[in-house]
Every structure is written in C-alpha cells, then in structure tokens.
C-alpha cells in the first residue's frame, strides 16, 4: 500500500527522504483538513460562550478526549488532560503531584535512557524540595537492567520511557511497574515513542500516569496528553491558574474545578486538539498491524544494509530484538553533524546530536550520534538512498 499520497509534504517535496519521524511525524491530509474545517466551520471558545458555535467547538474538542481515552484504553474520558506537549504533561505531574506528595529524601527512579523532558522536571524538584534521583542502568543492547532491590520503601515514583528516542530500545516495563506498586510507588510512563508504534492499554500496563505528544502521532504540534488515574488527578492541586480551571473565584480565594478542566487553564489549542482526533482515526484506519509490519520490514532491511558498512557503528541494540524503528549510529572520522549535512544536500533528513539525552550520551561516552527513524510512510528505496548517501559522505571525508 502506498501511504505517501496521504501526506501532502511528499507531494510538495517529491524527492524528500524523511527519516526523522521520531522528532516529529509528517501530517496526513485528513489532519490538515480537520484544522481547516475547524477554523472555517466551528471556531469559537469552548466551555464559555452560550451560543451554538461555542457548542460546536466544545463538542468537537471533547470528542477528541473520548477518542484519546479509547486509544489508550482509559476507563474515563476525564482521565485525559490536554497540555501543550509531553514535556508539559510531565512538568504538570512534577509540579502538582510531586510538590504536594513528595518530600526531602523521597526517591524518584528514572533510567539512563530518559529524554531531558523526563529528567529536568525531577531535577528541578530535587533542587526545590530535595528529593533524590536514582537511575536504572542499561546493558549493551540498551535494555534496562532492573533488579528488585532498586525499588524500596523510599521510592515514591518510577518514571520511565516505553521506548528510547535515542537508541530505539523498547523497554521491559511490566516487572518494574509491578514492583513499584508493591511498595506503593506511582508509575509514570513516557509513551512519546511507544505510542506511535504499538497499541497502548493503560489498564493492562497499570500506569498511574502516561504522557505523549500529538505531533509525533501524526497530529498537530501544540497538543500533548497526560493520562492519570482519576483518584490521583482528583487529589492533585491545579498546575496553572486562570480561566477554565475554576469552579468559583472570590477576591481572596478560589475553588478549583473538576478534572479534567482543573488542569486546562486558559484557552487551549482547540484547533489542534480537534484535529488530533482525525490523526488517531487515520492511525486506526491504517492499523497498528500494518504500521508494525512496514516499520519492521524497513528497520530490518536498514540494519542489514548499515551493518555491511565497515566504518559504521550501530549504537544500542544490534538486532531487531526489543527495537522500534529507530537506528542510532556513528561513522568513523565523520562527525554526526557532517553526516546530517551531507545527507541533507540529497534531501535526506536524519537527526544528529544528543537527541535530548545528554546523560545517556555521557554514559555511552559519545558526543553525539546520527539517528534515522522510520514511519510506515517510508519505503525501502529510501533506505537505499540513505545507505548510498552515507557511503558518499564517508568517501567525501576520506578521499
């Protein structure tokens, strides 16, 4: 099946080889149409005005909440909070839940794989209230090394990625989550990459919080999701204050509204949220089975081709086991920036840098890596172009 035609960017840029979907995905036409449809037909502020247009906008916005709840298997739609992005979702949990329920000496367990967005909010909390941060190590394949002694009575939160954006490793979360709950710790899952490549069931995972961004999931930028179990969300104080999040306001105090509105202060990205529904519907219409089949085929093929280059070193998992469609690598004697620059001349987009995982890069003793990531709209010919491009870059620097 050819999915490329569903994505206008490949029509305006017919030679584009986009291998940076882990940074942000391209957007299908249906999402762009939904954005336009909203502004042309339903634009009004939600939850506020008592006219028919506001009703339409509110209904459209709230419909996405149900779609997202269904997408991740949440029990209730009020367990879905819309934010700006996954980063804001994690900050919300750190500020609201963390500052209320954590105290000096309490431990938050992270891993070496975490994205800065799942590090800094906890480091900020460490600065502010003196919590302790612990890290799970990783083995040579990038998998988390976990033994039960790492979670103790002191552990109050375990916050882990479901799939590494730097190395592509799919983490084994289940035993960690089980142990965390045994000692009464809460669990936050960073599902930014995981949500794009596999179905999520928050009940089955038993996550207390789970976050992701719409823009990596074929939706618009500016929309993030925080899932939280309702009993937790209900006990948490508001994060930002303003319109929409209150029940009653007096000169000297306020009463916060109910969830989810309590956490959605101010006019949200109504258009973006509305269009995110179209993205999930599109994703569902393609189906995870097809997505996984295509991404697996591309990754397998790319690994085989890349391994044949003697000067290229794969970073992270060497094979297909526990790997999503992300491949990190370095090339002898060529800085990742120079690799990306050379490829860019051929309209091949990859990422070069630390991928917002500086502690991981330090751990691997690498300044940076080059990273190619595949989505179901990519094709085998694009992998060939990547490999040919890499050969030329190497030759250019070694001629």
């Amino acid at each position, binding site marked *: 099946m050819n999915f490329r035609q569903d994505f206008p960017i490949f029509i305006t840029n017919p030679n584009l080889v986009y291998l940076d979907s882990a940074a942000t995905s391209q957007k299908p036409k249906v999402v762009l149409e939904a954005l336009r449809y909203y502004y042309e037909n339903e634009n009004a502020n939600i939850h506020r005005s008592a006219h028919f247009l506001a009703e339409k906008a509110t209904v459209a916005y709230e419909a996405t909440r149900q779609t997202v709840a269904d997408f991740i298997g949440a029990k209730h739609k009020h367990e879905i909070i819309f934010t700006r992005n996954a980063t804001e979702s994690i900050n919300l949990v750190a500020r609201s839940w963390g500052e209320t329920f954590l105290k000096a000496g309490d431990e938050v367990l992270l891993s070496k794989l975490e994205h800065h967005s799942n590090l800094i909010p906890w480091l900020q909390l460490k600065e502010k209230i003196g919590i302790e941060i612990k890290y799970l190590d990783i083995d040579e394949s990038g998998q988390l090394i976990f033994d039960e002694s790492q979670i103790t009575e002191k552990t109050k939160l375990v916050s882990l990625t479901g799939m590494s954006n730097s190395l592509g490793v799919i983490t084994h979360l289940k035993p960690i989550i089980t142990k965390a709950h045994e000692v009464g710790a809460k669990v936050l899952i960073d599902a930014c990459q995981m949500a794009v490549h596999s179905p999520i069931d928050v009940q089955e995972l038993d996550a207390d919080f789970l976050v992701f961004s719409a823009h990596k999931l074929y939706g618009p930028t500016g929309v993030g999701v925080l899932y939280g179990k309702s009993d937790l969300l209900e006990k948490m104080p508001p994060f930002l204050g303003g319109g929409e999040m209150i029940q009653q306001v007096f000169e000297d105090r306020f009463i916060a509204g109910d969830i989810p509105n309590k956490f959605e202060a101010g006019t949200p990205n109504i258009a973006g949220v509305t269009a995110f529904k179209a993205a999930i519907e599109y994703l569902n219409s393609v189906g995870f089975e097809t997505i996984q089949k295509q991404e697996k085929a591309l990754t397998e093929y790319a690994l085989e081709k890349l391994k044949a280059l003697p000067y290229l070193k794969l970073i992270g998992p060497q094979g297909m086991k526990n790997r999503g469609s992300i491949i990190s690598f370095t090339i002898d004697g060529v800085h990742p920036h*120079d690799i990306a*620059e050379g490829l860019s001349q051929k309209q091949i987009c990859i990422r070069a840098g*630390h991928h917002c995982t500086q502690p991981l890069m330090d751990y691997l003793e690498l*300044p940076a890596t080059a990273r190619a990531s595949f989505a179901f709209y990519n094709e085998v010919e694009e992998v060939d172009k990547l490999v040919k491009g890499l050969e030329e870059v190497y030759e*250019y*620097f070694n001629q």
Partner: protein
Amino acid sequence: MCTMDIYAQNILDRYKKPFYKDKFNLSGKRVAGSGKLNLVIHKEANHSCGDVVEVGMKFVETQNLASLQVYSFSGNGCAISMASADMLGDVIVGMNMEDILNFSKDELYEVLGIEISVRRSKCALLPLLAIQNGVLGHQKEALKSWKDYHI
C-alpha cells in the same frame, strides 16, 4: 567519483589538515620576543552537538598593547567548527585584544567563505566564542554568550 560536495574545499582542507591544532605547549615557556607574557587558555562547548574547542593564546605586551603571538586550539567537532577554529588563527595572530574582541560574526563568515545556515551558526561561532571569552576572562570582564552573536 564522489558526488558529494558538502563544504567548500578550503573548509575540508583545513578540517583534515589543520595548521593550528594541538600546537600549543601549555608549559607556558616564553616564546620569542620580549615584554610581559600573558597566557590565555579557555574552553567552550556546544552542548547541543557535543563540540568542544579549547584555545590557547600567548599575548606579548609591548608598549601597553598585548598582541597575539601564538595561537593554538584543541578539540572535537564537526568540519565547520574545526575549520573555523583553524582559519581564525590566520586572522587573529598579530591582533591585540581589542581587535580580537571587535572581530565580528560577519567578518568570521567572510573568512570562512561559505554560506553558514542558521542550524550551523553555532558550529562556526564556537571557536570565536572560546577566543573572545578567553580574552574577556583574562580582562576580568563578563563573558559572552550565544545571544551576543544575534543568532
């Protein structure tokens, strides 16, 4: 036959065969010339790509004007940052501290002779940042940051 032409030949040449790289003897031995000797060593990093440049500069003070006699750098980075560090040596040796501080981004880009995209501006400027902050530190002045280059 290589079909790539990523950077201009001068950049590639200076990246592969740098003139000023790892030349510095940090023992602080006196170099030729008389007058008061000032040794300036300073390191800057571009954390977003892991590039690091450390510069070493020997200034010799004559008639109250310290001019740069010896320049060297060490570091790790992409072709643009390393070539920039090297090519800067051609222009700043002989300058006094004032001239070095006045050396602008545009003048650097002119020396490099290639178009520097926004996404690579920090690569090109990292060595200049290291050089200028080395001088500013020596003068006990506030150091520069990226925003001072308006990128």
